[in-house]
């Protein structure tokens, strides 16, 4: 309980910090002084609060999505960016831009989610064909499949001058988040709650098809539900802010090192830590090269691949 309280407190502290850090200055005195002209409040409500919420929702839901994937695939190193899911969603966005550029954002997101499901299904189909040699085989194939799908997207982007849009979803960036442009991420928040409520089922499904059936649950249906949540979260995050890599690997692994694999118990920690890590990295990106911002995708690319290497090379790594 104390640990949970500490985690919540840490996240709240970071979130408050996030409200006051950025190029335009928002100060407490500016907000509270009677002589305030409202500029500070405007900046706070239109830019900082939406940005902070977007970061918290995206970070928490991506971390939980990674955790669900790891449970269902029974592999510690899968997450949307190491299973072809994210790149497939991006290809979906690319095709929508080409074929139906006028579709509303919500429809675009749904199509991206459909592609994310297809991409993940393709990934699982490849895995089923391959004799499983080592747990590392799984992310290896996933990264490469992502590369192949990504090459398709870049081909389309080159051909039809959409390279800028391509960059928008390959590198996550919260600096464009404003009131009215992030609200889809509330759905991520909802999906994270659903994942929390149904967590036990994923834990059971992670123990295998036979075990699940034995307990009277429908293994297929749980798998489908889990993958749908993952695909929706990925598609939502990519359409609104772009790809946030590695969160789904680092956070669940860190939590499971500390407290084991009971998903119901660890979901809150995974969500809080995911949100906290993305917030911290975004703050870092805002501060380090002030007044310019470094997008979250770049910061997390460095932090995330460093942590991933640590997980891979850790002594006596009990992979699997």
């Amino acid at each position, binding site marked *: 309980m104390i640990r949970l309280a500490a985690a919540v407190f840490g996240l709240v502290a970071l979130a408050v910090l996030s409200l006051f850090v950025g190029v335009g200055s928002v100060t407490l005195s500016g907000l509270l002084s009677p002589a305030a002209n409202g500029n500070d409040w405007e900046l706070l409500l239109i830019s900082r609060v939406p940005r902070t919420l977007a970061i918290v929702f995206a970070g928490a839901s991506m971390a939980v999505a990674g955790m669900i994937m790891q449970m269902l695939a029974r592999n510690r190193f899968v997450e949307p960016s190491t299973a072809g899911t994210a790149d497939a969603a991006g290809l979906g966005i690319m095709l929508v831009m080409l074929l139906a550029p006028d579709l509303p954002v919500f429809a675009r997101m749904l199509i991206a989610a459909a592609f994310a499901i297809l991409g993940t299904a393709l990934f699982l189909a490849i895995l089923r064909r391959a004799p499983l040699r080592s747990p590392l085989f799984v992310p290896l194939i996933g990264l490469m*499949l992502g590369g192949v799908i990504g*090459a398709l997207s870049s081909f389309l982007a080159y051909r039809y001058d959409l390279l800028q849009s391509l960059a928008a979803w390959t590198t996550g960036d919260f600096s464009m988040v404003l009131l009215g442009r992030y609200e889809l991420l509330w759905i991520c928040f909802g999906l994270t709650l659903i994942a929390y409520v149904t967590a036990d089922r994923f834990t059971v499904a992670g123990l295998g098809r036979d075990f699940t059936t034995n307990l009277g649950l429908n293994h297929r249906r749980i798998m489908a539900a889990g993958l749908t949540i993952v695909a929706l979260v990925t598609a939502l995050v990519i359409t609104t802010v772009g790809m946030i890599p590695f969160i789904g690997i680092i956070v669940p692994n860190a939590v499971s090192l500390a407290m084991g694999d009971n998903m119901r118990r660890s979901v809150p920690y995974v969500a809080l830590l995911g949100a906290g890590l993305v917030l911290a990295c975004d703050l870092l990106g805002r501060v380090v090269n002030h007044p310019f911002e470094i997008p979250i995708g770049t910061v997390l690319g460095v932090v995330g*691949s460093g942590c991933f*290497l640590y997980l891979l090379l850790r002594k006596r790594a009990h992979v699997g």
Partner: protein
Amino acid sequence: MSARTRSLRVIGATGVLAVCAMLAFMTLDAGGRWDFVLPFRGTKLAAMLLVGYAIAVSTVLFQTITNNRILTPSTMGFDALYVLIQTTFVFALGSEAFSSLDRRIVFLIEAGAMIIFANLLYRMLFSGAVRGLHLILLVGIVFGILFRSLSNLMQRMIDPTAFVALQDRFFASFNAVDQQLLGVSALVVLAASVAVWRLRHVYDVLALGRDAAIGLGVEHRRAVFAILSIVAVLVSISTALVGPVTFFGLLVANFAYQMIPSHRHVFVIPAAVLIAFLVLVGGQVILERIFAFDTALSIVIEFIGGIVFIVLVVRGTAR
């Protein structure tokens, strides 16, 4: 027919096809403006040949010292490492000081740094601490991602306006080949080829594996260091000229192994080089003249190469 004659025939046939592709590249749709077309396409062709040669030779040699047909310098993060060295250089000097330096000298310094760091990376991956092929591959790939992200981060930290001015100077692609570097790269490739030639008796022995090679009297450590340095220089050249191309080496090396019925490097290396010429130049002709996509060659290579890679890993040719 002996393996020797069959290998020679394959090499001969590939060579003829490669020459045809080069002729097609130089002459198709020229529109009579030879005084413009020949030098313009000539530099592009020269760059493609240099890059094809560098990637083919470096990949085959790398696979010989690692005893493996799936690991390549670029999947192990070597060309990302070169980009990181380039970026660090600009970052450390500041973009103004950097732009006043002679490109060719900068390139030579970067290639020198690349020899040191490539050897360090290799030691780290292959000293025995990282066990198992899949782990080595995954660690190599993630190192590549780390190097790319670090380069990205530094590029973001450089003043944006100065960065835009520098961008095309240090990001090459097949379509924006760095002309200033062609001459010096050709010289370096020549020097590297002399080194490759002088080590020619070692490769077939090294391919038998570390223990067998030592048993047969090869100074394993020194030979690996020398070959890896050559690989590092060749990777620097191809990356400096056209930027990172992840799967090209994997493609040409594996084509060469498939087509040549012999394990001897006298046959495999020339075949890989000629296949590289054929794929690069022929691919460019097809894309440019038939489909009218001129920018896409490296993307198409990534796409096909990625699929081949997945097939190779799934089928488990990884030994």
